């Protein structure tokens, strides 16, 4: 039997039942499962994972009247349907157009459930990196729930306020429960799974704008004031990147930066190659010299 047929029959059996069904009952009712307890169990587990991955609300509940208590499975129709959006045709079409104009990496199954592409193609205007962890965090921010993840090898519990994509990177702004303060994270540095936790306790704050923050300003350390001289040939580029800079007589500029992440600061200064030099502070200057000496 086709796996698709078995999965559909499993979903129908669960939706049809008015009480939790045990694994054995499901095997008897559906058919199509392999002989033998171990093989059945393995296939059944995979099927459950598949249903859950597709968003089917499969629940495990004790079967009433069993002794010893046995777990069974069920799927309530109300959970299956959820809150219907009831989109008008033009609303669905506008969402379809939006997903055509802005292409997010990954598969878009949501639109199918709402009634599919309403026809009409549009030229893609932009492509944005996207993945499941981002979707989980955006949904948690919308629903005001905390998320847990690992960042820089540390477990964090954060109440997300906003996920922002700017200059090619995703940032998470939110309230860090462990540090009891607002924090900004680079999403690509989050490792492992992001899990959703309990409801948020803090009001949504005004997240700092990651566009105003540069890589060297993202960190847990105390900010250090640094001065960088950039030569005339790169001055226009520096002005464009940094905005306010001090103009020198020879056409060069001096930029004052607030550094919390020395590594990112070093990368930034190196991007000017031999057209830039760290003037202050002595520690960051010494760091740069040591780094360059190691490279020669």
């Amino acid at each position, binding site marked *: 039997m*086709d796996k*698709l*047929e078995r*999965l*559909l*029959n499993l*979903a129908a*059996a669960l*939706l049809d039942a008015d009480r939790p069904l045990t694994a054995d009952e499901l095997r008897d009712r559906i058919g199509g499962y392999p002989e033998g307890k171990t093989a059945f169990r393995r296939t059944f587990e995979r099927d459950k994972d598949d249903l859950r991955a597709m*968003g*089917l609300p499969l629940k495990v509940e004790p079967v009433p009247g069993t002794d010893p208590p046995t777990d069974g499975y069920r799927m309530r129709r109300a959970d299956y*349907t959820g*809150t219907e*959006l009831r*989109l008008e045709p033009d*609303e669905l*079409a*506008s*969402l379809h*157009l*939006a997903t055509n*104009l*802005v292409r*997010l990496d990954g598969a*878009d199954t*949501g*639109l199918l*459930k*709402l*009634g*599919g592409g*309403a026809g009409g193609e549009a030229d893609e*205007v*932009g492509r*944005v990196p996207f993945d499941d962890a981002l979707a989980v965090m*955006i*949904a948690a*921010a*919308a629903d*005001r729930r905390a998320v847990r993840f690992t960042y820089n090898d540390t477990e964090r519990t954060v109440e997300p306020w*906003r996920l*922002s*994509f700017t*200059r*090619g990177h995703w940032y998470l702004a939110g309230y860090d429960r462990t540090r009891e303060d607002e924090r900004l994270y680079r999403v690509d540095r989050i490792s492992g799974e992001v899990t959703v936790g309990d409801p948020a306790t803090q009001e*949504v704050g005004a997240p700092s704008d990651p566009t105003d923050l540069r890589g060297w300003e993202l960190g847990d350390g105390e900010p250090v004031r640094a001065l960088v001289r950039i030569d005339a*040939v790169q001055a226009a*580029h520096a002005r464009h990147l940094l905005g306010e800079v001090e103009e020198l007589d020879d056409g060069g500029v001096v930029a004052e930066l607030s550094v919390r992440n020395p590594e990112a600061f*070093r990368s930034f200064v*190196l*991007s000017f*190659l*031999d*057209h830039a*030099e760290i003037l202050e502070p002595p520690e960051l200057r010494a760091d740069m010299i040591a*780094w*360059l000496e*190691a*490279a*020669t």
Partner: protein
Amino acid sequence: MSAKLTARERMTRLLAVIPWVVEQDGALLDEISTRFDYPRKQLVDDLTQVVLFVGVHPFTPDSMIEVDITDDRVQIRYADWFAQPLRLTPEEGARLLTAGRTVLSLGDDEQATPLLRALAKLGMALGESADSAVDVRLGDAPEATLATLRRAVADQTQVELDYYTYGRDQLTTRTVDPARVFSDHGNWYLHGYCHRADDERVFRVDRVRDARATTTPITHPLEGGGASFSPDGDDPRVRLALDPRASWVVEQYPTEAVSTRDDGRIDVVMAVTAQPWLERLLLRLGPDAEVIESGEPLPADLAAAAAARILARYRS
């Protein structure tokens, strides 16, 4: 569309197709296929060889789904379990919210009203803070430059650009036949025919210092496309061994071959369009990158020479 759908992809589609066909009281195969991105042959096979056998115990005719296809028109009956669409997961909703809010931020108007209504309904399902949960900026080039370029694309007229080539560290002025303005991973690009290079080029809009519209019609129209980066076949290649910590390089830059070395490092081959670009990358990576091989005319000690040049500044 991809040639073959997985069982999961087919099931996700069927759980959407069934309620839609039921609600429409029948629909044409072609329409279902387009609307649900379901290759027609696969759709017919799945409806007639799978869905027709779906039901509940004891699988008597009255406890099974009925599918009828006559003259390419599909009717589905007795599919009570699947008569309503499956709920949107919060993650699926978040994707739609992100795409929708990004389009709103483009400030393009015509679609805005229905889209605002759709996002409001989506927001109600997602939670109280949906409006502020996500913010996408497709690029940070000046609005005025983008407007000039978009208008020139629409009018099919040439533009004159003062353009800063970051890789080569040069400011040049060129006449371009603009073909398309697009955003990729946070930057705006202009794809067009460059009369200075006498070839197709892709420009980063944030490096356009000034864009001047002209009334001269374009002479070299281009067919679609325009990748944000396309190396030249003649560009020299470099082979690097990267520490796993530097794996972001593989994601951030176009690579031609990637493999894992016996020592656990990542082996990567890249095209080098301009030497300063490679100098920057190697200096930034420091001990996390080793040059295994570099093609002519790249000097073997490229990074060391660049480091020495910079060090000279600090020692003078």
